[in-house]
Protein backbone atom coordinates (compact mmCIF):
# COMPACT_ATOMS: atom_id res chain seq x y z
CA UNK A 1 0.00 0.00 0.00
CA UNK A 2 1.58 3.26 -0.99
CA UNK A 3 1.56 6.45 0.98
CA UNK A 4 -1.17 8.19 -0.99
CA UNK A 5 -3.61 5.38 -0.51
CA UNK A 6 -2.80 5.14 3.17
CA UNK A 7 -3.39 8.83 3.67
CA UNK A 8 -6.61 8.76 1.68
CA UNK A 9 -7.90 5.81 3.66
CA UNK A 10 -6.92 7.46 6.92
CA UNK A 11 -8.78 10.59 5.89
CA UNK A 12 -11.78 8.56 4.88
CA UNK A 13 -11.81 6.78 8.20
CA UNK A 14 -11.28 9.99 10.12
CA UNK A 15 -14.27 11.52 8.38
CA UNK A 16 -16.34 8.56 9.40
CA UNK A 17 -16.92 7.55 5.83
CA UNK A 18 -17.72 3.90 5.50
CA UNK A 19 -15.55 2.05 3.06
CA UNK A 20 -17.42 0.46 0.22
CA UNK A 21 -16.13 -3.04 0.77
CA UNK A 22 -18.27 -3.20 3.87
CA UNK A 23 -21.28 -1.77 2.13
CA UNK A 24 -21.79 -4.12 -0.78
CA UNK A 25 -20.59 -7.15 -2.57
CA UNK A 26 -17.77 -7.48 -5.01
CA UNK A 27 -18.08 -9.04 -8.40
CA UNK A 28 -15.48 -11.77 -8.66
CA UNK A 29 -16.13 -12.82 -12.25
CA UNK A 30 -18.47 -12.43 -15.20
CA UNK A 31 -19.75 -14.72 -17.90
CA UNK A 32 -17.71 -14.67 -21.06
CA UNK A 33 -19.88 -13.39 -23.89
CA UNK A 34 -17.98 -14.60 -26.93
CA UNK A 35 -16.61 -17.92 -28.07
CA UNK A 36 -13.91 -16.21 -30.08
CA UNK A 37 -11.51 -14.11 -28.13
CA UNK A 38 -8.06 -12.72 -28.65
CA UNK A 39 -7.20 -13.30 -25.05
CA UNK A 40 -8.56 -14.68 -21.85
CA UNK A 41 -10.96 -11.91 -20.97
CA UNK A 42 -11.53 -13.05 -17.43
CA UNK A 43 -7.97 -12.74 -16.28
CA UNK A 44 -7.62 -10.18 -13.53
CA UNK A 45 -11.06 -8.79 -13.93
CA UNK A 46 -12.25 -10.06 -10.61
CA UNK A 47 -9.59 -8.49 -8.42
CA UNK A 48 -10.39 -4.90 -9.01
CA UNK A 49 -14.05 -4.76 -9.80
CA UNK A 50 -15.27 -2.80 -6.88
CA UNK A 51 -18.76 -2.55 -5.66
CA UNK A 52 -20.00 0.95 -5.55
CA UNK A 53 -23.14 1.51 -3.58
CA UNK A 54 -25.84 3.97 -4.44
CA UNK A 55 -24.43 4.82 -7.79
CA UNK A 56 -26.60 7.34 -9.50
CA UNK A 57 -27.57 6.64 -13.07
CA UNK A 58 -27.34 10.34 -13.87
CA UNK A 59 -23.79 10.49 -12.67
CA UNK A 60 -22.47 7.39 -14.28
CA UNK A 61 -24.27 5.49 -16.88
CA UNK A 62 -22.97 2.21 -16.50
CA UNK A 63 -25.12 0.91 -13.77
CA UNK A 64 -28.19 1.74 -11.88
CA UNK A 65 -28.62 -0.75 -9.14
CA UNK A 66 -29.36 1.42 -6.19
CA UNK A 67 -28.76 -1.36 -3.73
CA UNK A 68 -25.56 -2.91 -2.54
CA UNK A 69 -24.63 -4.56 -5.77
CA UNK A 70 -22.61 -3.02 -8.46
CA UNK A 71 -20.79 -4.74 -11.24
CA UNK A 72 -19.00 -3.86 -14.39
CA UNK A 73 -16.72 -1.19 -13.08
CA UNK A 74 -13.12 -0.47 -13.40
CA UNK A 75 -10.90 -3.30 -14.29
CA UNK A 76 -7.97 -1.09 -15.08
CA UNK A 77 -5.02 -1.36 -12.79
CA UNK A 78 -4.54 -3.64 -9.85
CA UNK A 79 -5.93 -3.98 -6.38
CA UNK A 80 -3.98 -0.99 -5.19
CA UNK A 81 -5.46 1.15 -7.91
CA UNK A 82 -8.95 0.04 -7.05
CA UNK A 83 -8.41 0.98 -3.43
CA UNK A 84 -6.97 4.33 -4.39
CA UNK A 85 -9.96 4.91 -6.63
CA UNK A 86 -12.49 4.30 -3.92
CA UNK A 87 -10.61 6.13 -1.26
CA UNK A 88 -10.20 9.16 -3.48
CA UNK A 89 -13.85 9.06 -4.40
CA UNK A 90 -14.76 9.23 -0.75
CA UNK A 91 -12.70 12.23 0.09
CA UNK A 92 -12.37 14.94 -2.49
CA UNK A 93 -8.71 15.59 -1.74
CA UNK A 94 -8.11 14.54 -5.30
CA UNK A 95 -4.68 13.42 -6.43
CA UNK A 96 -3.75 14.33 -9.99
CA UNK A 97 -3.89 11.19 -12.10
CA UNK A 98 -6.21 9.30 -9.80
CA UNK A 99 -9.42 7.82 -11.11
CA UNK A 100 -12.94 7.95 -9.71
CA UNK A 101 -16.14 6.30 -10.81
CA UNK A 102 -18.47 9.04 -9.75
CA UNK A 103 -18.13 12.78 -9.48
CA UNK A 104 -18.79 14.80 -6.37
CA UNK A 105 -21.83 17.05 -6.48
CA UNK A 106 -21.76 20.53 -7.91
CA UNK A 107 -19.71 19.93 -11.03
CA UNK A 108 -20.12 21.71 -14.31
CA UNK A 109 -19.15 20.71 -17.82
CA UNK A 110 -16.48 22.87 -19.40
CA UNK A 111 -15.33 22.45 -22.99
CA UNK A 112 -11.61 22.99 -23.50
CA UNK A 113 -10.07 22.49 -26.93
CA UNK A 114 -13.16 20.60 -28.00
CA UNK A 115 -13.05 18.13 -25.14
CA UNK A 116 -15.50 17.97 -22.26
CA UNK A 117 -14.13 18.29 -18.73
CA UNK A 118 -15.89 18.38 -15.41
CA UNK A 119 -14.95 21.16 -13.04
CA UNK A 120 -15.87 20.45 -9.44
CA UNK A 121 -14.73 23.37 -7.31
CA UNK A 122 -11.01 23.62 -7.82
CA UNK A 123 -10.71 20.05 -9.04
CA UNK A 124 -10.86 19.14 -12.69
CA UNK A 125 -11.84 15.74 -14.02
CA UNK A 126 -11.35 14.36 -17.48
CA UNK A 127 -14.12 11.88 -18.35
CA UNK A 128 -12.98 8.79 -20.24
CA UNK A 129 -15.09 6.09 -21.78
CA UNK A 130 -13.77 2.62 -21.05
CA UNK A 131 -14.96 -0.77 -22.17
CA UNK A 132 -16.90 -1.47 -19.01
CA UNK A 133 -17.82 1.94 -17.64
CA UNK A 134 -17.11 5.62 -17.80
CA UNK A 135 -14.57 6.94 -15.32
CA UNK A 136 -13.03 10.27 -14.42
CA UNK A 137 -9.35 11.08 -14.16
CA UNK A 138 -8.25 13.96 -11.94
CA UNK A 139 -6.25 16.38 -14.07
CA UNK A 140 -4.59 19.77 -13.75
CA UNK A 141 -6.79 22.66 -14.82
CA UNK A 142 -6.72 22.31 -18.62
CA UNK A 143 -6.38 26.00 -19.43
Amino acid at each position, binding site marked *: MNKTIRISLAVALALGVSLPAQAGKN*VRSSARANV*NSNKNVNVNRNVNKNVNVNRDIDIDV*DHHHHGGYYGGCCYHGGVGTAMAVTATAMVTAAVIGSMVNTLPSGCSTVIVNGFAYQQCGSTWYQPQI*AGSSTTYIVVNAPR
Partner: protein
Amino acid sequence: MRRLSRTLAALALAGVAVPALAQQPPAVDPGAMSALQAMGTYLRTLKSFQVDVATTDEDVLDDGQKIQYSGTTSILARMPNGLRAEVSNDRHERTYLYDGKSFTLFAKRLNYYATVPAPPTVGELARTLDEQYDVGVPIVDLFRWGTPSFSTAAVTGAIDVGPSVVEGVTCQQYAFRQDDIDWQIWIQKGDYPLPRRLVITTKTDEARPQHTAEYTWNLAPSFNDAAFVFDPPEGAGKVVLAKAASAATK
Protein backbone atom coordinates in the same frame (compact mmCIF):
# COMPACT_ATOMS: atom_id res chain seq x y z
CA MET B 1 -12.18 -59.05 -19.91
CA ARG B 2 -13.63 -62.36 -20.91
CA ARG B 3 -15.92 -62.28 -17.91
CA LEU B 4 -17.06 -58.76 -18.90
CA SER B 5 -17.76 -59.93 -22.43
CA ARG B 6 -19.77 -62.79 -21.14
CA THR B 7 -21.68 -60.50 -18.81
CA LEU B 8 -22.40 -58.13 -21.64
CA ALA B 9 -23.52 -60.95 -23.86
CA ALA B 10 -25.83 -62.16 -21.14
CA LEU B 11 -27.23 -58.69 -20.63
CA ALA B 12 -27.69 -58.26 -24.34
CA LEU B 13 -29.51 -61.58 -24.52
CA ALA B 14 -31.65 -60.50 -21.62
CA GLY B 15 -32.59 -57.44 -23.66
CA VAL B 16 -30.79 -54.95 -21.41
CA ALA B 17 -29.35 -51.96 -23.19
CA VAL B 18 -25.67 -51.38 -22.51
CA PRO B 19 -25.15 -48.02 -24.17
CA ALA B 20 -22.04 -46.80 -22.42
CA LEU B 21 -19.96 -49.71 -23.48
CA ALA B 22 -21.65 -50.44 -26.76
CA GLN B 23 -20.19 -47.70 -28.89
CA GLN B 24 -18.12 -44.74 -27.74
CA PRO B 25 -18.74 -41.77 -30.03
CA PRO B 26 -15.67 -39.67 -30.72
CA ALA B 27 -15.16 -36.76 -28.34
CA VAL B 28 -15.25 -34.35 -31.26
CA ASP B 29 -18.07 -35.24 -33.62
CA PRO B 30 -16.84 -34.32 -37.13
CA GLY B 31 -20.44 -33.63 -38.16
CA ALA B 32 -20.77 -30.97 -35.46
CA MET B 33 -17.48 -29.40 -36.51
CA SER B 34 -18.44 -29.29 -40.17
CA ALA B 35 -21.81 -27.72 -39.29
CA LEU B 36 -19.90 -25.01 -37.45
CA GLN B 37 -17.60 -24.48 -40.40
CA ALA B 38 -20.57 -24.32 -42.78
CA MET B 39 -22.18 -21.67 -40.60
CA GLY B 40 -18.97 -19.63 -40.58
CA THR B 41 -18.54 -19.94 -44.33
CA TYR B 42 -22.12 -18.83 -44.84
CA LEU B 43 -21.76 -15.84 -42.50
CA ARG B 44 -18.77 -14.67 -44.49
CA THR B 45 -20.83 -14.60 -47.69
CA LEU B 46 -23.16 -11.94 -46.24
CA LYS B 47 -22.44 -8.49 -47.64
CA SER B 48 -24.72 -6.77 -45.18
CA PHE B 49 -27.01 -7.87 -42.41
CA GLN B 50 -29.04 -6.60 -39.53
CA VAL B 51 -29.50 -8.68 -36.41
CA ASP B 52 -31.28 -8.05 -33.14
CA VAL B 53 -29.80 -9.96 -30.26
CA ALA B 54 -31.50 -10.52 -26.91
CA THR B 55 -28.87 -11.26 -24.28
CA THR B 56 -28.58 -12.37 -20.67
CA ASP B 57 -25.34 -12.28 -18.72
CA GLU B 58 -24.30 -13.26 -15.24
CA ASP B 59 -21.89 -11.82 -12.70
CA VAL B 60 -20.63 -13.86 -9.78
CA LEU B 61 -20.34 -12.13 -6.43
CA ASP B 62 -17.61 -12.84 -3.89
CA ASP B 63 -19.66 -15.47 -2.12
CA GLY B 64 -20.61 -17.29 -5.31
CA GLN B 65 -24.06 -15.77 -5.67
CA LYS B 66 -24.98 -15.12 -9.29
CA ILE B 67 -26.68 -11.99 -10.58
CA GLN B 68 -28.28 -12.02 -14.00
CA TYR B 69 -28.87 -9.00 -16.19
CA SER B 70 -30.42 -8.78 -19.61
CA GLY B 71 -30.27 -6.52 -22.58
CA THR B 72 -30.49 -6.10 -26.32
CA THR B 73 -27.93 -5.46 -29.01
CA SER B 74 -28.94 -4.33 -32.46
CA ILE B 75 -26.29 -4.70 -35.14
CA LEU B 76 -26.17 -3.36 -38.66
CA ALA B 77 -23.15 -4.52 -40.62
CA ARG B 78 -21.87 -3.55 -44.04
CA MET B 79 -18.96 -5.84 -44.72
CA PRO B 80 -16.11 -5.39 -44.48
CA ASN B 81 -15.99 -1.82 -43.23
CA GLY B 82 -19.26 -0.62 -41.73
CA LEU B 83 -20.68 -1.39 -38.33
CA ARG B 84 -23.38 0.10 -36.17
CA ALA B 85 -24.16 -1.59 -32.86
CA GLU B 86 -26.64 -0.30 -30.35
CA VAL B 87 -26.31 -1.91 -26.94
CA SER B 88 -28.91 -1.40 -24.26
CA ASN B 89 -28.79 -3.20 -20.96
CA ASP B 90 -28.97 -2.54 -17.24
CA ARG B 91 -25.48 -1.05 -17.31
CA HIS B 92 -25.03 0.64 -20.61
CA GLU B 93 -26.81 2.36 -23.36
CA ARG B 94 -24.10 2.66 -25.93
CA THR B 95 -23.73 3.05 -29.66
CA TYR B 96 -20.69 1.71 -31.53
CA LEU B 97 -20.10 3.29 -34.91
CA TYR B 98 -17.50 2.39 -37.47
CA ASP B 99 -17.31 3.69 -41.04
CA GLY B 100 -14.03 2.19 -42.19
CA LYS B 101 -12.00 5.21 -41.08
CA SER B 102 -12.88 6.05 -37.52
CA PHE B 103 -14.61 4.45 -34.57
CA THR B 104 -16.91 6.24 -32.16
CA LEU B 105 -18.25 4.94 -28.88
CA PHE B 106 -21.21 6.93 -27.62
CA ALA B 107 -22.37 6.58 -24.00
CA LYS B 108 -25.92 7.78 -24.33
CA ARG B 109 -26.83 8.06 -20.64
CA LEU B 110 -23.94 10.43 -20.02
CA ASN B 111 -24.08 12.02 -23.46
CA TYR B 112 -20.34 11.50 -23.92
CA TYR B 113 -18.63 10.15 -26.99
CA ALA B 114 -15.09 9.21 -27.90
CA THR B 115 -13.68 8.87 -31.41
CA VAL B 116 -10.46 7.17 -32.48
CA PRO B 117 -8.93 6.39 -35.89
CA ALA B 118 -9.78 2.88 -37.07
CA PRO B 119 -8.30 0.19 -39.33
CA PRO B 120 -9.97 -0.70 -42.65
CA THR B 121 -11.98 -3.80 -41.69
CA VAL B 122 -14.35 -4.87 -38.92
CA GLY B 123 -12.09 -7.80 -38.11
CA GLU B 124 -9.08 -5.56 -37.57
CA LEU B 125 -11.24 -3.08 -35.68
CA ALA B 126 -12.24 -5.80 -33.23
CA ARG B 127 -8.60 -6.66 -32.57
CA THR B 128 -7.47 -3.05 -32.25
CA LEU B 129 -10.25 -2.10 -29.84
CA ASP B 130 -9.65 -5.18 -27.77
CA GLU B 131 -5.89 -4.78 -27.51
CA GLN B 132 -5.58 -1.02 -27.23
CA TYR B 133 -8.75 -0.02 -25.42
CA ASP B 134 -10.21 -3.12 -23.75
CA VAL B 135 -13.36 -2.42 -25.71
CA GLY B 136 -15.14 -5.43 -27.15
CA VAL B 137 -17.11 -5.18 -30.37
CA PRO B 138 -20.59 -6.40 -29.38
CA ILE B 139 -21.44 -9.93 -30.53
CA VAL B 140 -17.98 -10.14 -32.06
CA ASP B 141 -18.41 -13.87 -32.75
CA LEU B 142 -20.51 -12.97 -35.76
CA PHE B 143 -17.44 -11.39 -37.34
CA ARG B 144 -14.98 -14.09 -36.36
CA TRP B 145 -16.68 -17.32 -37.31
CA GLY B 146 -15.53 -18.39 -40.74
CA THR B 147 -12.25 -16.48 -40.38
CA PRO B 148 -8.81 -17.60 -39.18
CA SER B 149 -9.65 -15.88 -35.87
CA PHE B 150 -11.81 -18.85 -34.97
CA SER B 151 -9.58 -21.76 -34.15
CA THR B 152 -11.17 -25.19 -34.11
CA ALA B 153 -8.05 -26.39 -32.32
CA ALA B 154 -9.47 -24.99 -29.08
CA VAL B 155 -12.47 -27.32 -29.28
CA THR B 156 -11.96 -30.45 -27.17
CA GLY B 157 -15.49 -31.82 -27.43
CA ALA B 158 -18.30 -31.51 -29.97
CA ILE B 159 -21.75 -33.10 -29.91
CA ASP B 160 -24.66 -32.98 -32.31
CA VAL B 161 -27.48 -32.69 -29.77
CA GLY B 162 -30.33 -32.87 -32.29
CA PRO B 163 -33.16 -30.79 -33.73
CA SER B 164 -34.52 -27.90 -31.70
CA VAL B 165 -36.90 -25.05 -32.46
CA VAL B 166 -35.80 -21.50 -31.58
CA GLU B 167 -38.48 -18.83 -31.86
CA GLY B 168 -40.36 -20.89 -34.42
CA VAL B 169 -37.26 -21.64 -36.51
CA THR B 170 -36.09 -25.22 -36.89
CA CYS B 171 -32.48 -25.51 -35.87
CA GLN B 172 -29.91 -28.14 -35.08
CA GLN B 173 -28.36 -27.86 -31.64
CA TYR B 174 -24.66 -28.49 -31.10
CA ALA B 175 -22.62 -28.51 -27.91
CA PHE B 176 -18.91 -27.79 -27.74
CA ARG B 177 -16.28 -27.90 -25.04
CA GLN B 178 -13.14 -25.83 -24.66
CA ASP B 179 -10.73 -25.52 -21.75
CA ASP B 180 -12.35 -22.47 -20.21
CA ILE B 181 -15.86 -22.54 -21.65
CA ASP B 182 -18.60 -24.95 -22.69
CA TRP B 183 -20.88 -23.58 -25.35
CA GLN B 184 -23.97 -24.51 -27.30
CA ILE B 185 -25.19 -23.17 -30.57
CA TRP B 186 -28.45 -23.55 -32.44
CA ILE B 187 -27.91 -23.32 -36.20
CA GLN B 188 -30.81 -22.78 -38.56
CA LYS B 189 -31.53 -25.77 -40.79
CA GLY B 190 -31.72 -25.42 -44.53
CA ASP B 191 -30.08 -23.04 -46.98
CA TYR B 192 -29.38 -20.29 -44.45
CA PRO B 193 -27.25 -21.79 -41.68
CA LEU B 194 -27.43 -18.83 -39.31
CA PRO B 195 -26.76 -18.95 -35.59
CA ARG B 196 -30.09 -18.50 -33.84
CA ARG B 197 -29.15 -19.06 -30.24
CA LEU B 198 -25.89 -19.23 -28.28
CA VAL B 199 -25.19 -20.23 -24.70
CA ILE B 200 -21.71 -19.88 -23.20
CA THR B 201 -20.88 -21.35 -19.80
CA THR B 202 -17.71 -19.97 -18.25
CA LYS B 203 -15.85 -22.71 -16.41
CA THR B 204 -13.07 -20.66 -14.85
CA ASP B 205 -15.36 -19.79 -11.93
CA GLU B 206 -16.95 -22.69 -10.07
CA ALA B 207 -20.26 -20.78 -10.05
CA ARG B 208 -20.23 -21.14 -13.86
CA PRO B 209 -21.80 -17.88 -15.01
CA GLN B 210 -23.66 -18.02 -18.32
CA HIS B 211 -24.17 -15.80 -21.29
CA THR B 212 -27.14 -16.40 -23.57
CA ALA B 213 -28.01 -14.72 -26.85
CA GLU B 214 -30.92 -15.12 -29.25
CA TYR B 215 -30.55 -13.74 -32.73
CA THR B 216 -33.29 -12.37 -35.00
CA TRP B 217 -31.97 -11.84 -38.52
CA ASN B 218 -32.71 -9.50 -41.38
CA LEU B 219 -30.55 -10.38 -44.38
CA ALA B 220 -31.87 -7.58 -46.58
CA PRO B 221 -31.60 -4.45 -44.44
CA SER B 222 -32.18 -1.05 -45.97
CA PHE B 223 -29.67 1.58 -44.90
CA ASN B 224 -27.40 4.26 -46.25
CA ASP B 225 -23.79 5.06 -45.42
CA ALA B 226 -24.83 7.72 -42.92
CA ALA B 227 -25.90 4.87 -40.64
CA PHE B 228 -22.22 4.29 -39.83
CA VAL B 229 -21.24 7.91 -39.26
CA PHE B 230 -21.58 9.51 -35.86
CA ASP B 231 -23.59 12.70 -35.69
CA PRO B 232 -23.22 14.05 -32.15
CA PRO B 233 -26.55 14.82 -30.50
CA GLU B 234 -27.21 18.22 -28.99
CA GLY B 235 -24.90 18.87 -26.06
CA ALA B 236 -22.89 15.68 -26.44
CA GLY B 237 -19.41 16.02 -24.92
CA LYS B 238 -16.35 14.75 -26.71
CA VAL B 239 -14.11 12.79 -24.35
CA VAL B 240 -11.23 10.33 -24.62
CA LEU B 241 -11.38 6.57 -25.04
CA ALA B 242 -9.50 5.02 -22.13
CA LYS B 243 -6.40 3.07 -23.06
CA ALA B 244 -6.29 -0.55 -22.01
CA ALA B 245 -4.25 -1.12 -18.86
CA SER B 246 -1.81 -3.25 -20.83
CA ALA B 247 -1.53 -0.68 -23.64
CA ALA B 248 -1.20 2.30 -21.30
CA THR B 249 2.03 1.03 -19.79
CA LYS B 250 3.68 0.66 -23.19
